[in-house]
């Protein structure tokens, strides 16, 4: 079946502009995660959605970052007033269940963001 998809695959923007990154999880997966992969920080957790529960936003680096998940499926990560340090690959993952030890997260190909 189809895996996790993300769009755009690449995004170049100017400092100060807002960007939106989209993630389509695997159909039927209730849990959705966003991670950031950057040269200096490696892979780090950003935010987590599970069903209709309030999202865990504890990994968001600043209030310029926000995310939503509409209808329990598609998610959008928004970065306002982008800064050069926001340049990274943003990875989305989904899983069938959560709260169970060892649940496998399936990753999308990522969106490569470059802030000039």
């Amino acid at each position: 079946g189809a895996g996790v998809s993300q769009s755009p695959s690449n995004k170049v923007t100017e400092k100060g502009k807002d960007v939106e990154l989209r993630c389509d999880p695997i159909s039927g997966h209730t849990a959705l995660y966003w991670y950031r992969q950057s040269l200096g920080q490696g892979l780090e957790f950003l935010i987590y959605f599970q069903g209709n529960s309030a999202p865990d936003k504890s990994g968001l680096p600043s209030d310029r970052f926000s995310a939503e998940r509409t209808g329990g499926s598609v998610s959008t990560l928004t970065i306002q007033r982008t800064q050069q340090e926001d340049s990274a690959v943003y990875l989305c993952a989904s899983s069938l269940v959560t709260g169970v030890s060892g649940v496998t997260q399936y990753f999308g190909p990522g969106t490569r963001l470059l802030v000039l």
Partner: protein
Amino acid sequence: AQSVTQLDSHVSVSEGTPVLLRCNYSSSYSPSLFWYVQHPNKGLQLLLKYTSAATLVKGINGFEAEFKKSETSFHLTKPSAHMSDAAEYFCVVNPSSNDYKLSFGAGTTVTVRA
């Protein structure tokens, strides 16, 4: 708290020779452990995972890993490297149940020489 240390940032092997990627973890609980692979400009693909069952875990593409609690290690091996194994490999820990935040190692880049 938990963390993951990948002991080698880069490993270079000849095609047909064994591959060993080392990973140590620290965890306050009985963790679940994963190895993911990332090919250039691709997403992360799960190679294998350990979830407190058999300590020797077999994954895709001939990879396997052994969980050693006494050594807090989860090293990844493959008996014979293939050119297509050139990629970046991440050791990942997921603490026990109810914790969904994956903690990633820094990654090991594997180069395969013809």
